[in-house]
């Protein structure tokens, strides 16, 4: 009976998927728009770094739709171009740290001894004051892409390793892994052929959640002067620069902050709503939640 109350485990077809999952499709579509605008937009707008000393700190409206900053640069253009840096950076960091975290998580979940050693290492790793590390990196290497990738990536690795470890252990305890051993398959091959594909949905969902977190931390680093250096725009350093003019030109930091928050919100929504698509257990919880909030549709 319980089996029947669990929604079917097969992944539905594309069209039914779109119809049944507006909660995934809507944020995904909006994110796609944001990405496309930041990729194509700059070709249609004026240069984000062109200064115009006569038109400094113009309020929104008129020739400059979102106003100009203290050097007379067009805020809209900077916002659109800054999206490239912020989104690209977040993606790069998440992919890098996700790859390392996935590897560590898989290995530590599959091999008992190595797993214990790796867990002790991540214990120490997590205790390491992340912000100190970020500051040291930036002072040592100078602000830039590599610094940020290292600084933020290192924070996420132990967390993503832990989450993946527990899922890997769960998968490894299923008998099909044992069956593969009986079939004469080597441990590394089992890890790649059997465990990885079954862990993959979690990796995807987790990567998305980390993209959101990364974008926020990227902003923190920018405010501390450790992020992508001016004059190239990023949403983080726009907020940081705008902070100085908060009382005279609040729009300078309002817009990039709103755009950043909205993007992070969308990414989070996508991550959260994607889980039930992959994970039958999450799907069951979603159905339960719907029953609780909307009641029994038959009993109205």
């Amino acid at each position, binding site marked *: 009976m319980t089996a029947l109350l*669990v929604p079917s485990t*097969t992944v539905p077809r594309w069209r039914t998927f779109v119809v049944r999952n507006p909660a995934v499709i809507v944020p995904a579509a909006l994110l796609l728009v944001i990405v496309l605008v930041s990729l194509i937009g700059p070709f249609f707008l004026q240069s984000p770094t062109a200064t115009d000393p006569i038109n400094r700190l113009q309020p929104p409206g008129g020739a400059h739709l979102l106003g100009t900053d203290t050097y007379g640069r067009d805020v809209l253009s900077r916002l659109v171009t800054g999206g490239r840096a912020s989104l690209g950076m977040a993606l790069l960091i998440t992919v890098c740290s996700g790859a390392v975290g996935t590897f560590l998580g898989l290995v530590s979940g599959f091999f008992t001894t190595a797993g214990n050693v790796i867990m002790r290492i991540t214990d120490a790793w997590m205790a390491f004051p992340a912000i100190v590390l970020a500051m040291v990196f930036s002072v040592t290497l100078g602000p830039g892409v590599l610094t940020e990738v290292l600084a933020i990536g290192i924070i996420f690795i132990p967390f993503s390793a832990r989450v993946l470890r527990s899922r890997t252990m769960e998968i490894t305890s299923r008998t099909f892994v044992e*069956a593969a051993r*009986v079939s004469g398959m080597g441990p590394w091959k089992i890890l790649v052929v*059997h465990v990885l594909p079954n862990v993959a949905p979690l990796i995807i969902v987790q990567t998305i959640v980390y993209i959101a977190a990364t974008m926020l931390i990227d902003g923190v680093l920018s405010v501390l002067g450790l992020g992508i250096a001016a004059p190239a725009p990023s949403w983080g350093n726009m907020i940081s620069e705008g902070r100085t003019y908060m009382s005279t030109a609040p729009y300078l930091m309002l817009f990039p902050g709103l755009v950043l928050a909205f993007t992070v919100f969308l990414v989070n929504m996508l991550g959260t709503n994607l889980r039930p698509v992959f994970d039958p257990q999450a799907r069951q919880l979603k*159905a*339960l939640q719907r029953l609780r909030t909307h009641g029994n549709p038959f009993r109205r």
Partner: protein
Amino acid sequence: MPLLELADLSLTVLTDDVETELVHEIALSVAAGETLCIVGESGSGKTVTAMSIIRLLEFVAPVRTTGGILLEKTDITRLTSDEMRAFRTGRIGMVFQEALDSLNPTQRIGKQLIEAFNPLDMIPGALRTAKGQQAAKAKAQSLLTEVGLPDTDRIMSMYPHQLSGGMQQRIMIAMALMSDPILLLADEPTTALDVTTQAEILQLFRRLQRERNMSCIFITHDMGVAAEISDRIAVMYGGRLVEVGSTRDVLTRPHHHYTRALLKCVPQLGVRHASGLASIPGSVPSPRDVIPGCRYAARCPAATEKCTTLEPALVASLGSTAYACWHPATEPLDLTAASGETDATPLELTDRPALTVDAVTKVFGRRRGVTAVNGVSLQIAPGEFFGLVGESGSGKTTLGRMIAALEHPSSGAITLGDHVHTARGVSGDAREFRRSIQLIFQDPQSSLDPRHTAGRIIAEPLRELTGLRGAELDARVASLIDEVGLPAATKDKLPSQLSGGQRQRVAIARAIGPEPKLIVADEPTSALDVSVQGQVINILLELRRDRDLSFLFITHNLSLVLSVADRVGVMRKGELVEVGRPHDIVTNSTHPYTRQLLAANPDLLAYQTTNP
């Protein structure tokens, strides 16, 4: 006037925006002081029916009920949730299959029992007073003593995980009785228990039900259990009630072909089926399937065109039963029909047995070691079907895992062909060893990678252990699929697209692919329905006939293993207490534990002979 009446009850649930009718127009009644057993396989709708009587289904899924459920003349389907809550307490109690999961893990037993004290004559809120608490505590203590846990104070201060499975189920029973219900629902309460514990719990049920003159609805998939506990039996299939009547009539003179086939599928103590068990072809239909006519028609030997177009209604027979069948059988059912066979002559243990286990011991944990297997020695002849039977914790699975080298023995040696497996590992070529022994696991759902197709799963050991590649490999996979009786199209299906029995066939095909000398089958049928169990066992028996293949068949099911194995070993607490031929074990077992197991085993045949 019956106490409970289900009047053409239908249940429909909504999942993924799809409506599924789980139960269709069930008409049943339970008299006061009567025990009704609802028997059925997976997907029969028996649990859903029970859940709807206590109205628990609506908390887990959107559900629509049509028809009525009348308890003491109140139609509970028409009550609001709040009214139902008030009505339920003090009238209906329920015991579930998963006792541990049904108890709150972070609350003491005593508190959980006291919370259930809510008799009909109690003033609301009285439990919050000291007097109410005292009354509840006294009630809990007397009930614990009644269910066989006399050490009440200690038990009440314990947490659920500290108790054994049998004790947890006793607690659940006590909890269900806290408010003196007039109707007790029990959903497979003994399925997860060992056979000796099951016998105790069944006895307890029977006693409590008689003493309190309660009505009881007992859900089970096991005809043997139903025979021991029920006054009347209702048989469900595919969401329909197919036959209902007194226990005696249903078990000895069933009219519906499904009831008859199901009864024949249950292996009986002392009845040999070495040439094959009875089974029902095909598999249980899913509630999502739209089937005109009788839902059993596709599997029924007596089906005619009428059966596939018109659905039969429940009609009364001359006796106490009612059945839904166009072509009912009338003659009494003889369960000993297949008993012409005697014990197969046991195979001689030659100088080179297929497997030799020599004084093998396995200790888990370093400091406070738990001895799972203790000095077990046994031999299996080439081509022998050796059954290993034991309760949970007997070490039978650990022994099987050591033989398959998934676990190393702490001491002793296991010899398989040229390979010797000791604490230091397996001697000789690892690939050659793997090729000579394969494993079939209990749960085909978990032993098949959900992301691989059946073809890929079957090809895996061939790819790893043999040189077969390309077209040759494909041909071999196709022939293996055919050999286990699956259609060729199975190759491209994912495990989730197959039924339980089909999945286990895929697992068997995977195991025989590398042509092993020995197959360790660890409870290969315990996750399957009885009607399908025979199909899987028969494939194993057939394979043994066709090739020079030995089996180590591990199970908790005594009657099953006694009816098909050449020799049987009984394990208890890590030790092999008895080995012998099935006939000898049934008739004159030397070990008291074996006799205890035999006595506890629910026995249909005994029922038939005592109630002709």
